[in-house]
Structures are given as structure tokens and as C-alpha cells.
């Protein structure tokens, strides 16, 4: 698996863990261990996002690196990574 996909998978994993912990904290707001693990997962997710975006560009349009150019519309678009005409035998 290439680095970009590996990073994306890690981001998805931490975001999932955050959502599951959120559901727990909604019914257990004073659970210090759950809150500690939520903070740790949040840090991981944020660090991975920073790492991904500095290398591979925006995950969403709110990512604004120091540049004079709007990067959100850069190629390739999500559906251009695999498939498309590259895998079509004419």
C-alpha cells in the first residue's frame, strides 16, 4: 500500500475511534479514562491530517496552506486515482 493510502486509512481509523468514544462519552460524561483516550485519539487524528495534507494536499476546502493558489481543485480528483481510462482496454 502506498504512503498516501496508508495515511488515509489511519485517519479513517482514528476518526472512527473518536466517533465511537463520543457515543460513550455522551452517556458517561465524567469518565476520565474515556476522556483521556478521546484526547489521545484526537491528537493522533489531527497530526495525521497535518501530515497527509502537507504531503498530498487538502482533505477538504478548509485547508489553506501558505500559497497564493487555491489547491482544492488540483488533479487528480478522487475518482481519477484508479480506474478511469487507465484500466480500459479499447
Amino acid at each position, binding site marked *: 500500500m502506498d504512503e498516501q493510502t496508508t495515511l488515509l486509512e489511519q485517519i479513517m481509523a482514528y476518526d472512527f475511534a473518536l466517533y465511537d468514544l463520543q457515543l460513550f462519552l455522551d*452517556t458517561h460524561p465524567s469518565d476520565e479514562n474515556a476522556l483521556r483516550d478521546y484526547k489521545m485519539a484526537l491528537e493522533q487524528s489531527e497530526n495525521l491530517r497535518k501530515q497527509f495534507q502537507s504531503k498530498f494536499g487538502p482533505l477538504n476546502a478548509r485547508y489553506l496552506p501558505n500559497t497564493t493558489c487555491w489547491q482544492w481543485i488540483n488533479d487528480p480528483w478522487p475518482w481519477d486515482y484508479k480506474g478511469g481510462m487507465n484500466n480500459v482496454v479499447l
Partner: protein
Amino acid sequence: MENLKLTTIYSGNNCTGESIVIPVMPIRPELANAYVPYQLYDKILPAQEALKKGTVFPELIK
């Protein structure tokens, strides 16, 4: 008995207010009522394993 495990919750916002000790399941359950045990925090799975299993809580994997 498993039902007699106790935990503390708070009546107000921001973990304040009256602290109430509750059992994780009713000690005297009523007929025709359904109950969900109050989950106690233990360990969580590593994030990537959790995503594959569908939960961060090992005790919820069925």
C-alpha cells in the same frame, strides 16, 4: 452478583451536582420491562483494529 457492580454519575452539567451511585443493572428488575446494562469503561482496541471490528470496545464484539 454481576448486577451489583456500582458506578457514580452526576446529576448536573460539567460533571457537577449531586453524585449518584447506580448499579449497572436494576437490582430488582420488573417483569415486562427491558433493560440495557450501564457500560463500564475498560480497555479500547487500537484504532485500526477497531475500524475492522466495528467498535473500539472489545466487550461489544459479538
